[in-house]
């Protein structure tokens, strides 16, 4: 096995294990050994986050481990990404816009979804919490995302997801985006009722669906 393959394999494992410093050292080593940045993402960082998502879904990993792995991935990406400009371009597989809807101040679930989308190869725009529909519509106009991911953690705020979808319709943007929803009080039935395209019951499920959607939409 070529030495660069060994480095990438080790790098992938360090990201899975949530070890940012050794992972960054290996990312640097891979670059020094001649790996192009594009390959580091495709052969190590993205597959590592795939594996982390799989482990979370089968309850081998809990939230802190997922977040440590994401921290490792982001630390490596910070080293590798600037060099992308000098090599072959690594295009994101799509753009995702995520936010917690109006009246809701929760952050953790949305942050996790953003990390998993990033780990799946998306360019991610995180609008934060308490987002009014008008702000989301404006961001959709500006960034033209493929995916809009809405989060709500309260029964009182989940209804604002419907307001977002109605605002997207009113702005003639609904057909241009794939709307995913998630959060403790919502489910698949609610997603159908409000006209969302997908309900994700966890962050890896959401990012996997988003990737499948853009892959098939762009095929």
């Amino acid at each position: 096995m070529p030495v660069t393959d060994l480095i990438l394999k080790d790098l992938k494992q360090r990201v899975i294990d949530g070890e940012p410093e050794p992972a960054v050292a290996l990312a640097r080593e891979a670059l020094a050994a001649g790996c192009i940045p594009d390959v580091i993402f495709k052969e190590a960082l993205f597959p590592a986050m795939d594996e982390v998502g799989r482990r979370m879904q089968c309850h081998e990993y809990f939230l802190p481990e997922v977040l440590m792995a994401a921290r490792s991935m982001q630390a490596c990406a910070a080293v590798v990404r600037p060099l992308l400009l000098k090599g072959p371009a690594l295009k994101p597989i799509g753009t995702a816009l995520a936010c917690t809807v109006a009246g809701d101040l929760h952050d953790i679930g949305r942050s996790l979804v953003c990390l998993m989308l990033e780990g799946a190869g998306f360019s991610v725009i995180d609008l934060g919490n308490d987002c009014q529909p008008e702000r989301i519509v404006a961001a959709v106009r500006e960034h033209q995302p493929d995916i809009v991911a809405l989060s709500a953690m309260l029964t009182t705020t989940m209804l604002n997801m419907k307001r977002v979808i109605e605002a997207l319709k009113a702005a003639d943007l609904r057909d241009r985006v794939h709307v995913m929803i998630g959060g403790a009080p919502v489910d698949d039935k609610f997603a159908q009722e409000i006209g969302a395209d997908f309900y994700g019951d966890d962050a890896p499920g959401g990012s996997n669906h988003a990737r499948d959607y853009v892959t098939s939409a762009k095929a």
Partner: protein
Amino acid sequence: VSADRALPLPGTVRRWAPIAPVVPADLILRLQKYRDLARVPRAIRLIADAVASEASRLLAPEAVLWRGPVTEVDPAGAISIGDAHHFHSRALARLLATAAEAYVVVLTLGEGIDERARSMLREQLLVEGLLMDTAAWAAIELLLRDVRRFLLDQERVGGRSVTHRLGPGHRDWPVTEQAALLRVFGEVPLPVSVNESACMLPRKSVSGVYGIVPAS
């Protein structure tokens, strides 16, 4: 629960500052679903230890307790407490089915720990922020356990017991009745408020009702 352990008289309110609990790192990790603490990765264990240590210093708990009559319990889910405080929940009706009186409690940790957790999240210290947030809920659970133990001790003397706690947003009790529940306290200044989403502020706050029932 506090240096002054007097219970409120029926129809009155008591406000006090509970002693801030020490939040064990093990409890934070267990709340994050780690049943086997030996398999917690070292880096996460270290963060949990640091967060636990810091969390206890950020707590500024305040509690308010009201005691009064349960005036109506319809098994279909209509409940009245005190003078004219009406709620709608079959689960609450079941809880209070044999209760002549009830306690209403509000407990908050103050702004400090929530603000710290949020600042960690803003700084992308997501593991730290998650565990600080969990530490806050752990502290609330510890405080609620103390409150219920205290109430049980007091009621046991009179041959009574205390049910578990039920609050708006749990089971079938609509969270939209949160503000109505706080009106039980009348004009007494509360350490919490309710926003238009029925979310209590500071965010690390809970409310709920305990039924006072005959001891079995």
